């Protein structure tokens, strides 16, 4: 689960990770008021107006602007940025509409650095990565100049040791800004580690981490991602969700206990199991690519879904306007084929079947499942294997053209 920069910085503040002063703003008037307040608090009229969307690369896309002329200029910038479709390398060509701003004090920056903490699956440790190349895309730094990134791995039982923070600090050359800068950085790393573990983060990226002209160390950005699996022990996360950032269908699916990801294609997929669901998408594309046939979604109904959840899942696919055919691919283990069949039939009878449906059933209660589909009177075509199903799907979509 991703949250906005201003929300991430509120978490930073709770753990003592230093941040510039700033206030969120949802309207132009709030942006002006925030700028006035910051000027009073800091004695400087320079503020930064920052678009709040989950994607990175906001500055390059025109979503981050400096206002040197106080509240009036901040309001002018807010008028331009609020409501814009912000396009970055992470949003895709359609961009993301800006609905929230963060107004932050302007600072005199000496250096821009990069710091991130993440779960490194290969070492099975939390890794801290630091680089002198702040403000750059870290993927690019990793590919072109990997020697500019230093990584330390944290033993989960020992925690982040001060010597590890010092290793990072000296690799960044922080000693040339003074002893306080090295110490400030080490303290920031310790706070960040405590936050990472207690808040169940899966990734925290600070790009840039800045050294101010005065030698202070601060997080100028905050990209925080939480571990979805830990949601059960963080009821406070619910208030941090921004529905405007999420795909509406994915949210609806999540509420129904289904794993759903929207894609660009034209074939709806209903599958049990994440691996089989991915493999189903793959085979549709493999067989259908040169005919313009591709998956419209990833959908794993899981192993323990009941008939209502299957009905819900199938209804969601049926309602999608881009879907020209539906592939139901089930290898029943815990999931019983008759439960799937009943759910499909219930949704189809409720909403009507306007597109061809190909069903491939295997596993537990397969005969009963096939009988339910056969007796339903619905126009459902059976497939014997995944390949047979994908071939029939391509034919069905081609025939509808």
């Amino acid at each position: 689960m991703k949250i906005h920069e201003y929300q991430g910085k509120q978490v930073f503040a709770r753990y003592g990770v230093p941040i510039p002063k700033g206030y969120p703003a949802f309207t132009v008037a709030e942006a002006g008021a925030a700028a006035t307040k910051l000027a009073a608090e800091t004695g400087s009229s320079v503020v930064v107006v920052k678009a709040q969307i989950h994607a990175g690369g906001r500055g390059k896309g025109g979503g981050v602007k400096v206002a040197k002329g106080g509240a009036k200029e901040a309001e002018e910038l807010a008028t331009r940025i609020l409501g814009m479709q912000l396009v970055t390398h992470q949003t895709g060509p359609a961009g993301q509409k800006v609905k929230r701003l963060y107004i932050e004090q302007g600072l005199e920056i000496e250096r821009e650095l990069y710091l991130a903490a993440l779960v490194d699956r290969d070492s099975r440790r939390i890794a801290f990565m630091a680089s002198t190349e702040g403000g750059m895309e870290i993927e690019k730094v990793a590919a072109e100049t990997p020697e500019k990134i230093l990584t330390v791995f944290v033993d989960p039982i020992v925690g982040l040791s001060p010597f590890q923070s010092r290793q990072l600090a000296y690799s960044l050359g922080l000693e040339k800004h003074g002893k306080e800068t090295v110490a400030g950085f080490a303290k920031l790393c310790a706070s960040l580690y405590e936050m990472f573990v207690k808040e169940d983060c899966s990734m925290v990226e600070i790009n840039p981490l800045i050294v101010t002209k005065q030698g202070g160390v601060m997080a100028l950005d905050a990209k925080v991602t939480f571990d979805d699996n830990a949601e059960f022990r963080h009821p406070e996360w619910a208030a941090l969700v921004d529905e405007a950032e999420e795909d509406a269908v994915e949210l609806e699916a999540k509420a129904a206990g289904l794993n759903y990801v929207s894609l660009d294609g034209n074939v709806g997929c209903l599958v049990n199991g994440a691996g089989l669901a991915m493999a189903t998408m793959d085979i549709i594309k493999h067989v259908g690519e040169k005919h313009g046939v591709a998956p419209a979604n990833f959908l794993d109904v899981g192993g323990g879904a009941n008939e209502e959840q299957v009905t819900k899942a199938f209804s969601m696919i049926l309602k999608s306007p881009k879907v020209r055919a539906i592939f139901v691919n089930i290898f029943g283990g815990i999931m019983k084929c008759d439960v799937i069949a009943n759910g499909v039939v219930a949704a189809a009878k409720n909403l009507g079947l306007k597109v061809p449906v190909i069903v491939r059933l295997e596993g537990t209660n397969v005969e009963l499942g096939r009988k339910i589909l056969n007796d339903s009177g619905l126009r459902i075509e059976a497939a014997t294997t995944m390949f047979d199903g994908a071939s029939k799907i391509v034919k069905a979509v081609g025939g509808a053209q």
Partner: protein
Amino acid sequence: MSILVNKSTRIVVQGITGSAGSFHAKQCMEYGSQIVAGSTPGRGGTMFEGKVPVFNTLSHAVRETNANTSMIFVPPPGAADAILEAFDAGVALVVCITEGIPVSDMLRVRRVLDTLKGKTRLIGPNCPGIITPGECKIGIMPGHIHKTGNIGVVSRSGTLTYEAVGQLTSLGVGQSTCIGIGGDPVAGMDFVDVLELFQADPNTHGVIMIGEIGGGAEARGADYIKAHMTKPVAGFIAGATAPAGKRMGHAGAIISGGGDTAAAKIKKLESCGIRVAPTPSDMASTLMAMMKK
């Protein structure tokens, strides 16, 4: 022969009185697995299905019944603790089916597991379990699709394992042991750990290895195969059509940059002598074509 489990494996079920635990414990018993005990705090002294004693703690269950393998169905908030309890009780194998354990919990579990130096092995979490056809089923896979034989199957996905097994069985080819290592980013046995056992098992003549996007486990498996395996290995990697940065169901199935896309993994596998099935419908036939030569 087989790997890790056989007809003499003595199983204790952690979370045996929950809905998933009781349902699957029964299914495993019907398959012929020896379920010798269960454990649920507060339910000690009762009997499961009238014949399996339930204990409050796992160490008590192991002491009384000589169980050597644990199967875990404890829900996510208590699952990591259940795994640690199994390590403490000294069983040789822990199979954790539970899906949705926080990764920070698993980092600590994994750290403890590494100190055990092979005394206890962990399969999963978020996995279908392990089966040696005709002898022992520990997990949630449909037993009836399996057949006794000589092909090992190892996979990060549950249903895709069933798909491979179904294909093998329909060709009349049986399996020695099938293992789902699970879809989480931090877990127990890796491809390499399982491949080592298949290579050493005289009853396993060939292997199907099924991976997916995310992480470096497949690449490490491929390096091991190239360096150490004399048996044919066919592979499949799911997620060629998955968009970067999106979690595809499994917590671990997310492209996070570097060499963890399906295309990069397929290239790596092929460069190490693994024949990769062009579609998920061809997993068994790809291996069989290698074994005919």
